[in-house]
């Protein structure tokens, strides 16, 4: 879907037929700080996964939980909640 959508392109009654299509929206550009995971310290407790408001932290194949930067808004809740301080926040560089 594009941003140039008009009312003529909508379903009658503004019905959205595709459940969860908000996952195509990029909210990662809100971010000013980026979470970095230190895998040596991580104990895989999954607290960051449960607490992430943007659901951007996903369980990976290797058992670690890393943030998907397409969605991460950089709130630093994961860095605060981490019991072993394995997540640190770094400034987002200019691109």
């Amino acid at each position: 879907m594009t941003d140039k959508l008009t009312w003529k392109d909508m379903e009658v009654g503004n019905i959205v037929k595709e459940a969860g299509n908000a996952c195509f929206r990029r909210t990662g550009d809100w971010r000013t700080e980026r979470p970095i995971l230190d895998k040596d310290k991580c104990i895989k407790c999954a607290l960051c996964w449960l607490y992430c408001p943007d659901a951007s932290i996903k369980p990976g194949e290797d058992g670690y939980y890393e943030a998907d930067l397409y969605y991460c808004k950089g709130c630093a809740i994961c860095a605060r909640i981490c019991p072993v301080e394995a997540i640190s926040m770094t400034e987002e560089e200019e691109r």
Partner: protein
Amino acid sequence: MAITEVKFGDRLLTSKEFLAEGHNFCIGCGEPMAIRMVLKTLGENVIMAMATGCDEVTTTPLPYTSWRIPWMHTLFENTAAEISGVEAGLKILMKKGRIPERRITCIAMAGDGGTSDIGLQALSGALERGHDFVYICLDNEAYMNTGIQRSSSTPYGASTTTAPAGKMSMGQITRKKNIVAIAAAHGIPYVATASPSYHFDLMRKVRKAADTKGPAYVHILTPCPTGWRCGGDITVQIGQLAVQTGVFPLYEIEHGRYRLNADPPRLKPIEEYLKLQGRYRHLTDDHVARIQEMVNEDYAGLKEKAACFPVEAKE
């Protein structure tokens, strides 16, 4: 192979996201945390009606939706009335054999404005009629979505845009409406307060509320960095402090029996909670002392009620 379940503590939680990523919640909001925990507990057999509010506006910017469960937007006034209709409709469809018999949890979700101000009448009606549903109030203590206007859930002393602090005013001059007690006064089977900062407690209560036959009410305090004027990273800590200072005690009321779930031996001083938030910045020592007095009073009252019903030992 994709991971479908995550071991969390002594339970398995689904790694499916029923609230999709890409929503518009503010940075560090407590509401999506609570919603995710609720949905991960209940799974996909749910139908949700949601009142207008932060949670509705931010998750459904047309033409997008964040919901992967059957979800309806309702007006402020009639969330509980709508979910009553859904529940009654499901019951009759199953009776007539149009849809297979199975357990579907009906959830109504609203903010504090949609619960304690505008939707109170519909909520009271639905609780009184005894529909089998779970009503979840996400309390962020003001109308945050439209720009931090006071609601009846705004606590004493907080500064909002319609109750601003200044030379002539100290912000909100009334006390927070005790909507939990109002819900409990209907004599419904299950009423509870929960906080996303205490995730096991929240998930247990939501599970219990869903398993309860009849109406259940769960009140969740969701810190709001925008309206409470605090950093987005300390949402969880503020939620913990709200419980540890006694501002928002965690308790449940089962068939009129009160039980305190978190009872710290000594409450932390209220300043620890207030000083983190910009909405309380203007308060003088007298005001803080007054708030401390109120909190102590309320907490003592609650303890008294809980003491009437001693906790039975687990077998």
